[in-house]
């Protein structure tokens, strides 16, 4: 095993223990709990949009059915598969970080970033198509193929939720890119030092989790 704790200077890749924590174990537990609290606030942020979706779907069911059928299900499904696979590589990065295989951590995060870029490119083409035909939020809507009460609200919810999700994709990519650079240059992730990889990967799984709910809500029902 390539554990770096057994290398020449023993403490090279052991994270600094802050004075107010009893042990590294307690410190890591606190970091993880803090991340879960942050993710809970993120869930509640998206929940506001889910509630908008639920209420307006309840009031305008025909508009919702027409709106979801106008989206491109094929590219929506491709994006779901891309994001689930990127979540797998992020989870594998944590796995390799625990084993101290820094090169594999970097490679896994690089793959995750490539898939994240792919997700954003597909999303760009979907947005572009909507700007062309005019299925836009509120009073900017000019598509004549669907004229139903509430149809503009569907696209308001669509653009707000997918844009907020895309912003989270970009933030997650930044976090993972920092961890990737560190895995390739400092090479100091190991069994005692993988909190950064673990928490970055948890953020990425949240991005995946939100999309798992957005995809059937917007494209299927």
């Amino acid at each position, binding site marked *: 095993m390539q554990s770096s704790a057994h290398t020449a200077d023993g403490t090279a890749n052991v994270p600094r223990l802050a004075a107010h924590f009893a042990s590294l174990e307690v410190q890591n537990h606190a970091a993880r709990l803090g991340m879960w609290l942050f993710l809970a606030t993120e869930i509640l942020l998206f929940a506001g949009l889910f509630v908008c979706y639920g209420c307006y779907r309840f009031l305008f069911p025909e508009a919702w059915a027409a709106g979801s059928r106008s989206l491109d299900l094929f590219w929506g499904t491709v994006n779901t598969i891309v994001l689930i696979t990127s979540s797998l590589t992020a989870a594998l990065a944590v796995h390799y970080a625990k084993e101290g295989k820094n090169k594999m951590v970097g490679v896994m995060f690089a793959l995750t970033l490539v898939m994240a870029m792919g997700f954003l490119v597909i999303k760009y083409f979907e947005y572009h198509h909507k700007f062309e035909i005019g299925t836009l939020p509120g*009073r*900017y809507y000019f598509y004549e193929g669907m004229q139903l009460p509430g149809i503009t609200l569907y696209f308001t919810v669509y653009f707000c939720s997918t844009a907020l999700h895309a912003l989270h994709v970009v933030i997650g990519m930044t976090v993972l890119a920092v961890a990737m650079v560190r895995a390739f240059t400092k090479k100091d992730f190991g069994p005692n030092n993988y909190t950064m990889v673990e928490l970055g990967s948890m953020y990425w799984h949240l991005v995946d989790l939100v999309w*798992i709910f957005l995809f059937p809500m917007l494209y299927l029902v």
Partner: protein
Amino acid sequence: MAIANESHQEEKNMHEHHGAGRYWLIWGVLLVLTVVTVVTGRMHLPNFGLLLALVIATVKGTLVALYFMHLSEHRGANRIVFGVSIVFVVLMLVIPLADFGTRFRGANPPGSQYSDLQPPDIGTGAQRGRFGGGLRPNQTKDTPETPEPGHH
């Protein structure tokens, strides 16, 4: 003491550490569930389509949280934080829906299925929507005039 803790920590991590096969298995299950939700979604099941899609999404989300996010290996506090936030999301969704379903019909948005009022013309025509509901002077002749609200 610090050194002792670190070696103990490493032992513990290695004890919790398992093969990468589990992640690949979860990935496969997630892909299968994605295909299932797309196939059943395309059937447009009339009554329980939304329910089925949400159940599948919840199963997928639970798998991601438990195994990709390692919630299955964590102790109390982390689980409570996550569980409580889900409970509050459900509350926040159910209470407004109950309100819309039971309130006086005239108080619901016009044009919705729980209202008897005509939807307002919010200017979604092919010409006007392009300019945010405002009309350009040279295009007014293609688009019928929006009646004042009082003329209905």
